[in-house]
């Protein structure tokens, strides 16, 4: 800005100086020209005064002298000699041009001359007339000026000597030739009308100067008008160069400033974007890891550091990722090498793998990898997002365990609840019936008058309660019938697999081994899945509990075996290595509410048999296990489901009796 002001100021000053100088020059020239004109005219006056000397009065002599004068002085056009009464005596015209008054009569335009002569006479000295226009033959004209010189001979006025001067000629000689080329010289009247002019070109009216040519009797106004226009902005090459350079410099500066501004803005935007990206990376829970093509870590975000427990520096400097579990290093190296070769086909699907925390804890992660490509489109490495899925895994595991436990509970609850409900529902009416019956008997022992009425009442109550018990039994029956409709054809292995986890759960506590033996392919049975699973669970649990009395845990083996024993029947065997069941106990084994366990309901086995019999099968046991000297083996049969259409007919088949 300062520069701009300075430049403008400099320019203005230069221009002003320039124009001032030009004006000064013009004025000087004008004065010079006026002086020259005046000198010329006054010189001519001198010559004319010598012509007026009486020695030259003779007509021939005068003519010769006048002619010589005209030849000497190129400005004078004509010299006249008049008497005091204005009578023309003689006249000589300049030999350099046509006679002045060839077109017009002299007497018609001698008013100014006469005026000047009268003044000259009065003042007794030479006097110039005002200028006047003399038309010429070629339709042009000429502005002229007369000098009137009173001639005195022996003390008395003896006529006049009149010389006529050409104003243009005066002007043409007023300045040197080279000056004349660049300026216009003119005589002007007071109102600015040009009387005569000289110079090669018209002036532009920018630099002009007037100068007065003061002559006795007349004054001429001389005007010099320079051809030079107003000073141009670029007066010369140097200035132009400086100006151009300055302008260029200024332009460059402007461009630079704008560029700098743009750069600053871009930098600010970049910084902001970087900060944003950093904040984003830091706030991520997902670990980010960048590796070069050699597998060296070039970048990790805080989440990744937190995940593996190593600092970013330690990770970058380690020759090998410290979070690789040592036992898996060869595998991972191989994988990395394979990845290096197949550099292009990075899949967007994650890869699950195992990492190690600093404390040695292994944890599963999911890695999503994408190639890192630099600005030139070169593949420089890999960027991976690493997600710690150990919590997820734990949750899954927990939920699976809970699911299993829930299932186990549900399965055990089905039969337990039913038994409990049954016992409760039946207990009440049966207890009441027993009370009424006993009470009645008591009364009958010592009957009195009130006895019949009381016994009657008791019998009514007994009937009511019996009916209620009947309803309970019927509802159980309905329940069982409903279950019958749920029968489906199943592979035996499905049943076994369903109960094995629960059986294992129980077996683990006592360190019991489980030996499941199924033929391949496994036979298929038609059954109510839930109920049969209950039977299997019950038998297995009984077996495991029976073996808890064994001193040696190694001898605790639960054997579950399935065989297709008949075309229509599949037999399940559940055998233990416990102490076995003695004959007396065995006889009551399937009796409802009989139990050898303190907390047992005594319903397990009887219900199991009921379930099996509902399916048309049979249940039995042997103790000791056939072929051995200890343990118990429970067996039951289920109708086999054949892929053929008779599957339905099996249900109505006669119950199979077991032959061990």
């Amino acid at each position, binding site marked *: 800005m300062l520069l701009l002001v300075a430049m403008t100021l400099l320019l203005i000053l230069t221009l002003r100086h320039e124009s001032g100088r030009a004006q000064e020059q013009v004025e000087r020239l004008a004065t010079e020209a006026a002086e020259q004109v005046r000198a010329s005219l006054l010189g001519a006056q001198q010559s004319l005064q010598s012509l007026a000397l009486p020695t030259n009065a003779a007509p021939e002599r005068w003519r010769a002298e006048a002619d010589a004068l005209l030849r000497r002085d190129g400005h004078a056009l004509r010299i006249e000699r008049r008497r005091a009464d204005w009578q023309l005596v003689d006249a000589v015209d300049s030999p350099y041009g046509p006679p002045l008054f060839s077109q017009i009569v002299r007497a018609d335009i001698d008013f100014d001359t006469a005026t000047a002569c009268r003044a000259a006479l009065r003042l007794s000295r030479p006097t110039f007339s005002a200028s006047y226009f003399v038309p010429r033959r070629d339709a042009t004209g000429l502005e002229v000026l007369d000098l009137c010189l009173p001639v005195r001979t022996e003390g008395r006025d003896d006529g006049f000597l009149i010389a006529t001067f050409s104003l243009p000629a005066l002007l043409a000689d007023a300045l040197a030739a080279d000056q004349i080329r660049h300026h216009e010289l003119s005589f002007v009247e007071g109102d600015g009308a040009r009387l005569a002019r000289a110079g090669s070109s018209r002036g532009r009216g920018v630099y002009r100067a007037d100068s007065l040519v003061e002559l006795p009797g007349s004054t001429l106004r001389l005007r010099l008008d320079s051809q030079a226009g107003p000073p141009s902005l670029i007066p010369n090459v140097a200035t132009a160069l400086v100006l151009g350079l300055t302008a260029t410099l200024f332009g460059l500066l402007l461009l630079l400033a704008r560029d700098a501004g743009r750069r600053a803005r871009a930098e600010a935007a970049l910084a902001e974007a970087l900060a944003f990206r950093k904040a984003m990376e830091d706030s991520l829970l997902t670990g980010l890891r960048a590796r070069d093509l050699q597998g060296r870590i070039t970048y990790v975000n805080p989440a990744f550091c937190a995940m593996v427990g190593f600092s970013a520096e330690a990770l970058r400097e380690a020759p090998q990722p410290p979070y690789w579990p040592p036992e898996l290093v060869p595998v991972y190296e191989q994988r990395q090498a394979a990845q290096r070769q197949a550099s292009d086909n990075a899949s967007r699907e994650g890869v699950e793998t195992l990492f190690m925390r600093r404390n040695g804890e292994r944890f599963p992660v999911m890695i999503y990898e994408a190639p890192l490509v630099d600005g030139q489109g070169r593949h420089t490495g890999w960027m991976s997002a690493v997600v710690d899925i150990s919590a997820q895994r734990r949750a899954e595991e927990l939920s699976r365990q809970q699911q299993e436990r829930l299932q186990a509970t549900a399965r055990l609850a089905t039969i337990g609840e039913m038994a409990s409900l049954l016992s409760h529902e039946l207990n009440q009416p049966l207890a009441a019936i027993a009370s009424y019956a*006993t009470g009645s008997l008591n009364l009958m022992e010592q009957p009195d008058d009130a006895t019949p009425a009381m016994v009657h009442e008791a019998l009514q*109550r007994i009937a009511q309660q019996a009916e209620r018990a009947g309803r309970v039994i019927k509802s159980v029956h309905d329940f069982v019938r409903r279950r019958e409709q749920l029968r489906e054809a199943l592979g035996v292995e499905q049943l076994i697999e369903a109960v094995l986890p629960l059986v294992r759960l129980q077996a683990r506590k006592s360190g019991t081994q489980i030996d499941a033996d199924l033929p391949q392919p496994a036979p298929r049975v038609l059954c109510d899945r839930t109920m049969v699973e209950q039977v299997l669970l019950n038998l297995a649990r009984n077996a495991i509990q029976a073996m808890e009395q064994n001193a040696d845990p190694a001898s605790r083996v639960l054997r579950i075996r399935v065989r297709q024993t008949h075309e229509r029947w599949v037999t399940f065997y559940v055998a233990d290595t416990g102490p076995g069941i003695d004959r007396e106990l065995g006889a009551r084994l399937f009796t409802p509410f009989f139990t050898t366990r303190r907390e047992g309901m005594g319903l397990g086995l009887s219900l199991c048999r009921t379930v099996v019999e509902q399916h048309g099968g049979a249940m039995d046991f042997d103790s000791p296990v056939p072929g051995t000297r200890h343990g118990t083996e429970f067996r039951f049969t289920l109708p086999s489901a054949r892929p053929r259409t008779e599957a339905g007919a099996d249900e109505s088949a006669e119950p199979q009796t077991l032959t061990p």
Partner: protein
Amino acid sequence: MSQMLDPTLGLPVVYLVDDEDVVRDALAWLLRSRRLLSEGFGSAEAFWQHLQSRRGSGPDSAFPGAPACLVLDVRMPGTSGLELFERLVDAGLLPALPVIFLTGHGDVPTAVAAVKRGAFDFVEKPFSNNALVDRVEQALQQSAEELLRRRSQQAQSRRLSVLTERELEVMRLVVEGHPNKRIADELDISVRTVEVHRARVFEKMGVKSAVELANLLRDGGD
């Protein structure tokens, strides 16, 4: 069999606390067939309320006023039989109000523990009905005995209260088996005076000999 009980104690009552109406009614009916009065309650809380109202009324607030026993179901919604039992123990009602627990399946260990804490007995469901009534009668017997003991204790303390200071001293020495001469020396009084006091004590306590007196004091004192 209630005839066996001292009729002066009043009619014995069996309190039945069981949430199952059917069972309770049947049991009440059975007890009636054995000429036993019963009062049924559907919950432990209801019985406790009844008890509070009985204890609060009357100047002689000892409960029960007549031989009584409580047949109590262990498992009940709300306050359980066991909780009620604890409250009765805390209230010191137990010897006069024997408790027979009715236990369901699996409650046997708790019932055994309750017996150790002073319950009369427990009967497992399903129970043999007359056996339960037999135990109820035995419980009533115990209750009656307890009431009788309380009664004689009260009578004895009434009698002792009319003895003078000197008579009490003489009685203590008599019961300890000292002869009159020794007692006179001990109390620094004449043998004659001792004999007078002795005759007074025998009269007031309603006994004829020193042995009789000693027996009376022993039975009523512990």
